[in-house]
C-alpha cells in the first residue's frame, strides 16, 4: 500500500532535492553550465545581508498574506460548512471555479482592475469615495491583493473540510452547559477546526514565500522577493549553483520551523485539559 506513495516521494521530492543539494556545492562556467568542483561559496553568498534582507521581506509578505487569508477565509469556510448539503456543494464549486482559469491570466486580469483608469478607480470615483484616481497598480498593496486573491481558496478548503465535520451537537452541548458565544468559539469551534487552520496556514504560507510572478506582474518588479531572486539565478544570472543553495537553505528553514510548530502544545490537547 505504501509503495506508490514512497515512489511518488522519491521521484518528485527526494530526487529533485538531492540534485539541488549536489548542485549547491558546485560552481559554474562562463556559460552557466554546472562544473562539478566542490565549493562553499554559494552558501557564504546566501548569508550575505542583501539576501537575508530579501528573505525577511518575503517572510513579512507571506505572514501578512497568511493572516489576511485566515481572517477572510475562516468565516467564509465556516459559513459554507454550516449550510445544507446541497448549498454546500454549490458554494464549494464557486470556490473552485477560479482554478479553471490559469493563475497567470487571473493575475493579469487584476491589472485591468487596478490600473489608473481601471475598474476599481472607476467604481470608487463614481461613488465619490475618492476625489482623484488612486495609483493602486505597481505598489506593495497591489502585490498583497494579488497574493491574497491567489491563495485564499487554499485557506478556505481545509478549514471547510474540518468545519464540515464539526458536529452541531457539541456546540449545542456547550451552550446548554452555559458557555457564551465567545466561549463556544474559543473552546469548542477553534480547537475542533484547528487541523484545518494548520493545514490552511501551511498551504498559504509556503507557496507565498516562494512566489515570484505576482510581485513581477502587479508589483512592477520593483521590490524583489526571495522567489524573484531564486528565479533570476536560474534564468537571468545563469547561476544555478547559487540558486540551488538558496533553495536548500530556504527548504531547511521551512523544515525546521515546521518541526518547531509541531512540538508546540496542540489545540486539542489544551482543549481536553
Amino acid at each position, binding site marked *: 500500500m505504501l509503495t506508490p506513495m514512497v515512489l511518488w516521494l522519491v521521484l518528485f521530492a527526494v530526487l529533485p532535492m538531492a540534485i539541488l543539494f549536489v548542485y549547491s556545492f558546485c560552481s559554474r562556467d562562463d556559460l552557466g553550465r554546472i562544473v562539478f568542483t566542490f565549493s562553499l561559496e554559494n552558501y557564504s553568498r546566501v548569508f550575505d545581508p542583501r539576501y537575508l534582507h530579501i528573505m525577511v521581506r518575503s517572510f513579512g509578505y507571506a505572514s501578512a498574506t497568511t493572516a489576511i487569508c485566515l481572517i477572510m477565509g475562516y468565516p467564509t469556510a465556516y459559513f459554507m460548512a454550516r449550510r445544507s448539503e446541497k448549498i454546500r456543494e454549490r458554494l464549494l464549486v464557486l470556490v473552485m471555479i477560479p482554478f479553471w482559469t490559469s493563475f497567470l491570466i487571473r493575475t493579469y486580469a487584476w491589472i485591468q482592475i487596478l490600473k489608473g483608469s481601471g475598474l476599481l478607480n472607476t467604481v470608487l470615483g463614481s461613488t465619490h469615495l475618492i476625489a482623484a484616481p488612486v495609483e493602486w497598480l505597481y505598489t506593495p498593496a497591489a502585490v498583497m491583493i494579488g497574493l491574497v486573491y491567489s491563495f485564499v481558496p487554499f485557506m478556505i478548503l481545509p478549514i471547510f473540510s474540518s468545519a464540515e465535520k464539526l458536529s452541531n451537537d457539541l456546540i449545542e452541548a456547550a451552550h446548554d452547559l452555559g458557555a457564551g458565544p465567545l466561549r463556544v468559539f474559543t473552546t469548542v469551534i477553534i480547537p475542533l477546526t484547528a487541523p484545518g487552520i494548520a493545514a490552511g496556514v501551511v498551504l498559504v504560507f509556503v507557496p507565498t514565500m516562494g512566489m515570484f510572478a505576482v510581485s513581477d506582474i502587479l508589483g512592477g518588479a520593483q521590490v524583489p522577493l526571495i522567489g524573484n531572486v531564486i528565479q*533570476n539565478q536560474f534564468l537571468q544570472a545563469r547561476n544555478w549553483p547559487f540558486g540551488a543553495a538558496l533553495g536548500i537553505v530556504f527548504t531547511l528553514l521551512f523544515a525546521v520551523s515546521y518541526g518547531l510548530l509541531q512540538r508546540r502544545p496542540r489545540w486539542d490537547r489544551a482543549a481536553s485539559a
Partner: protein
Amino acid sequence: MRVLRRTLLSAIVALSACSAALPSSEVNLFAWTEYIPQEVIDGFTKETGIRVNYETFSSGEEMMAKMLSGSASYDVVQPPDYIAEALIQAGLLRKLETQRLPHLANILPEFLHMPHDPTQSYTVPYMTGTVGIVVNTRVVTEPIRGFKDVFQPSHAGRIVVLNDNREMVTWALYSLGLRANDLSPENIERTRPILAQWFKFVRVFDSDSPKTELLNGDVDLGVVWSGEAAILYQQDPKFHYIIPAEGVHEFVDVVAIPTQATHVAEAHEFIDYLLRAEVSKKISDAFPYTNPNGAARRLLSAAQLANPASYPPAGPRDTFRAIGKTSQQIDELVTDLKNSR
C-alpha cells in the same frame, strides 16, 4: 489476463504503425515570445509538410539556460547577438550550409560579418533594433533628448523601463560617457549611484510588454525595445521614439542551428523560408523591428518605413558582446539597488 495482454500488445502495434505513417519530418524551434507570426509558421508547414514544434523564451539568458540544460533538443534557436557569440565560442552552434540558404543574399551587407559572428558562418540575422526612449507627448511636453531628461524628479512614478539588468547598466554606462561593452568591475561599480538615482523614479520594470503600461496611461515615459515603440507609434503617433543622446546600442537577434540538432536539413529549409522577402515582410507587419532583409524592406509600405522607431537614422552602433561571469556582478548590483529602494 491473457486477453488484456493481447489487447495491449495490439494497441502498441497499432500505435507504432500510426507513428510510422505520420510524416516524420519536423523541426523543433526555440524562439522569443511575440516574434514569429503564427501565419509564417503555418505557411511553412503548408508548403513543405514539415511540422514545426514551437517553444518560446523571454530572455536570451533563459534561452541559453534551457538550451544548456540539455532537456530538449532544438533544431533552430533564435538567440540575441551576445548569446550567439558565447554559444559559438563554446562550440554549441553548427556551421550553416550556406548553399542551402539561397535567400541569405537578401540580407543587407551592414548586417553581415558582425562582431558576434565575424565569419558569418553560424548565424543569420532575423530582426534588429535599438533600445530607446518612448515619450507620450500628450502628457510630457518638454523636449526629451536623453536619459538625463527622462530620469528627473518631475517624472517620478511615470516611467517604465525594461526589466533587463544588462540593459539598465548599459544606459548608465552611456551616461558616464562609456560604451556598452566597457563592463570592467570598476565601470559597473561606477554605474551604481546613477542607477540608484534613476530607480527612485521608475514605476515599473517590464521586459515582456512595456507598451501595455504606456497604452494604459499608467506611465508616460519608457526605455523600451524599438519594436514595442514602433507598435505604440502605429497605434497613436503621440508616442515619440527618441534615440538617447548619451548613446544607444543595437541588438541583432539571429537564427542558428545547435550542434545537437537532429533535423538539420529541415532546419536549413526553415531558415531559408524566413529569409524570403515576402515571408520576412509578414514578420515586419506583425513585429515592426528593423528588418535586416533588404528585399523585404522593398515590399514595406512608405508608412512602415517612416516609422521612426523601426527605421531610426542609421549610424554605427555597438552591439552587446559575450560577457561570461560578469552577469553575476550585474545581477548583484541590480538586486542591491532594487532592494534598497
